[in-house]
Structure formats: structure tokens, C-alpha cells
């Protein structure tokens, strides 16, 4: 997988799915969900700091709450390139990989600030910021493979030989 480069946006612990995509946006058409990404975020106007390809860096339990797959879909459609967090809620983590949004457990939020430029190599498990390289457990090969296909459904179709 290619190295991911992007502007860092640092968030706190327990960023829940209602903050990532509020309940009122849930019935929106699939291709419109990106317009509502982070619309419910507490304490920060996300759109004011977001640039295309930004990397979200968060604390514990990112994506806690609902099973709504619309939450990672919204981040993916907006163009978020990666979410790094100390930890993820289980369903969000699986949903994100299944729809092709890279999410990676890396406890780095305390060392970065919003606006930093990061270069992340998920295969090697490295994050380079301001001349410093931080090392973490690399992303699991099976997860990387799903992401390279763009998600679980394209992977399954390819593996089953469905055109």
C-alpha cells in the first residue's frame, strides 16, 4: 500500500458515531453522506481545519456507539485518508475496513498537533512527523489486503472471480 501523507487533525477520546455522523443525517442518500461528516463533532468546527486527505488522530475508543456504516462512509467520501487512534470501537473498526477506510491503532495523539504533516507507512508501521519517526505495530496483512481492494465486497468479488 502507498505511503499516506496528510495534514493531521487531533481529536480526543470517545469520538462517537453521533459526532461522526449525526442521527438526523442517517436517511440521506448514500452519495451525500460525506457532506455531513463530523457535523456533530463537539468542541471543534471540523470543516474549518479539514483539508482533502487529512489524517484524523484520536485517543481511546474512536467510533464508539452505533453500528451505522454511514459513519466511516461519510469520512471516506469526504476524503479523510486515515484514522489513527489509541483504540477503536469494534464495530466501527470493522465497518471502516469493510468499506475501504484505513483505520489503524497507533497511540500517537499526545505527540502530534493539528496542522502537522504526517507520512504514514501502514506496512512498516511508521509515522514520520517533523523529522521524527515513530514506530508502531504494522497493520495486519489481511487488513491491508482488504484495503488494497477498496473494501470487503470488492475483495470478495475478486476472490470469487465475479466480474
Amino acid at each position, binding site marked *: 500500500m502507498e505511503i499516506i501523507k496528510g495534514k493531521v487533525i487531533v481529536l480526543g477520546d470517545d469520538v462517537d458515531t453521533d459526532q461522526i455522523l449525526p442521527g438526523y443525517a442517517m*436517511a440521506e442518500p*448514500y452519495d451525500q453522506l460525506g457532506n455531513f461528516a463530523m457535523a456533530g463533532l463537539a468542541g471543534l468546527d471540523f470543516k474549518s481545519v479539514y483539508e482533502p486527505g487529512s489524517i484524523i488522530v484520536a485517543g481511546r*475508543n474512536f467510533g464508539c*456507539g*452505533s453500528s451505522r456504516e454511514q459513519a466511516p462512509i461519510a469520512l471516506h467520501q469526504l476524503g479523510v485518508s486515515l484514522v489513527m487512534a489509541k483504540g477503536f470501537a469494534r*464495530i466501527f473498526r470493522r*465497518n471502516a475496513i469493510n468499506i475501504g477506510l484505513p483505520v489503524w491503532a497507533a497511540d500517537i495523539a499526545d505527540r502530534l498537533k493539528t496542522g502537522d504533516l504526517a507520512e504514514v507507512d501502514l506496512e512498516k508501521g511508521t509515522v514520520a512527523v517533523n523529522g521524527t519517526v515513530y514506530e508502531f505495530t504494522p497493520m495486519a496483512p489481511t487488513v491491508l489486503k482488504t484495503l488494497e481492494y477498496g473494501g470487503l465486497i470488492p475483495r470478495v468479488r475478486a476472490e470469487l472471480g465475479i466480474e
Partner: protein
Amino acid sequence: MNCVERYLAKAAGVAETTAGQDLSCKVSYVAAHDVTAPIAIDMFRRIGVKKVFDPDRVALIVDHIYPANSEKARNNVWAMKDFADEFGVHLYHRGEGVIHQLMYEKHRAQPGELVVIADSHTGTCGGYGAVGVGVGSTELAAAMATGRLDLEVPQVIQIYLTGKRRSNVFGKDLILYLGSLFGTDYLVDRAMVFTGPGIEDLSVAERMTVCNMGIELGAMITLFGTVEKEPDTLEVKEIDLGSLEPQIARPFSPANVVPVREVAGTPVTQVVVGSCTNGRLNDMEQVAKAFEGKHVHPDVNTLVVPASKEILDEMERRGWCRIIRDAGATVLNPGCGSCFGAHEGLTSERDTVVSTTNRNFPGRMGSMKAKIYLASPATAAATALAGKITVPGEE
């Protein structure tokens, strides 16, 4: 093996398993609702298979936004109707109730059977011993196609219950208390299993409330076992039910919990009783008992949302709807109600809510600034009458 390992081994068709092992398990029931089903249907069609694994074991349920509050919401219902017509699966789209209650009433899994629902509160079925795993839409589509779910066998945290609860303490108070012990992520990728003689003091409905909120502690699976202690668990936490007092979660986390008495007196503008957490008949009974011959405080908008039509019918037979309406409260149609912030009772920044639902995240019920407290129906009812947070039984 502990019971989770035994159940998952059986579902996978293997003699033994242990925490950390990857298994492909046979699924007994699959379901989705109007927020998760439309994408699951789309994903299912993208997989390209021609039928679901067993139409009689698949249910699509319109509960989150019923009746539709927008053209878009209505189109989601049509997508579910079209799918049900084409593939012959069960469809509930006439306000029959919340998915987790309907699965109990209409498609009840046996203890140990695997239930996969595209909803985070799927653990609710652990109240009757089934293994519920909440998934997103893509995994649900795969489960509809294959009748199987791939998972990693979780480590088990065992909660060994003893004693008898006080008359003003319920399943809700127990799970809130556990939130204060474990926080929101200690149980991520883990299972929580309740055992010990104390479980006999909790009805199936109360157990469903407890299991419903396991996800708020991060749990992958939450279920009730037997009074016998389970072997091979990561840790055992013993709790004497008799030592518990009514609990309440303060804004803005379900784990931000204190005894109700510590926030007693806080003025409240809205009370909500209902949802997949606390919308069952025993919950409605707490409200009807408290409201009989009384009137809710004039400053409190009080909304009562039965979890299913069956429950609402029984409330009417028992005269509880009349009691609740005469008390100045509103009985809403069965469903998810205002729990998740799409309709039926949204807040403004001036509101402070006591709700029996499962989440009090910022903006969960409308305004980002509205303060939501989570408590039992008994606490909620006492609070509605007094206009301020009140310990039930100590009015």
C-alpha cells in the same frame, strides 16, 4: 471452555475453541433496520448472489424512523419492501416495534444460538442466553448471503452476581454501575457474561436491559449464563446486588455514572421512557404505578415509547395508557422514538433530559448542548413527577 467458547465452537462445528481463535460460525438469525438495511441491501446486490441463506431466518424491521419523517426515509422503507418481496424475507414496516424486541417476540433464538443484527444493541438477546453480535451493513450483507459470520473468539469478563436488589434498583442500575467500573472501552473485543445466584433476581426483561447496554462498555457479546460459575474466564468480578442503589449517567457518556442521590434536585425539562433498553412491559409498569392518580410536573415534557405493538396492546388492556395520558404524559407509537435524534422529541439547548435510553452523547437527541441523563424507568418516572432528578421511592 467457558459458555461463550462452548456456544461459538458449536456454531462453528468444532469440538473445542479458545479465546483468540478465528472461527466461521453458523448464524441462526439475521436482521437489519431502516438505518442499516438500505446499505446492506445495496451491498448484498453488489455481492451478486441470487438468494439469501434462509429467508425464514432473515428479518427487515422499520423501527428507527416510523412513520417516515421525510421522503428520503420513506424511500429507505421502499428499498426494504422491494428486497423482502424479491427474496421472501420477513418484513415489519407497520410500526410493530423496535428490532431487538421484535426478534424476542417473533424470531426468538435459543440460548447459545448466534444472532447477527446490523445494530450495535444486538447484545440485547443475551438476556435470554443467545449470542448477539452487532455488525455493520457490509458484514450483514455477507451474513445474509452465506448464513455465516467470521469472528475472533473473545476473552470473557465474568460478572458473578449475588444477593437481592432493593425495590428501587433494576437491571438498568446494574449496567450503569458496571459502566462506572469499566468505562467505555475496557470490554472492546471482549465478552461479558453474568453468572451467580443473583441472576435469579433479574427477570428476562431486566436481563435484556443489562445486555442491551454492554456495547456502551465496548463489549462484543454480553449474555446471561447460569448460576454456576463459568470456567476459563479472563477475570471474575463479584457484585452483591443488595449493595446497589439507583444509578444515573451524567452528560455526555453512558459511563459517567454516579448514584442518583448525588445529582438529585437537578431541574429537568424532558423525560423519555422507552427504547430497546427500557421499553418493555415491566418498564411501562414502573411508569403506570408511579403516575396513577398523579400529574407530571408542568415543566416536564414526558414521552413514553413502548418497544413494541404487543407491549402497547397490553398497556391498553391494563389501563396504563389512560393512566399515563391522564398524568399529562404522551404515549408515542412503538419504535426507537427520540432515542437517536431523528424525530419525536428532539431537544434545544435549553433542555435537560432524563431518559431510559442507552446513549447520552453530545447531540444524541438534537441539540449539542442539551444535557441528557440516563436512568431506570423508576427514576425517570419519579423525576417526571417532581420536575427534578429524584431517587425513586424517596420522593
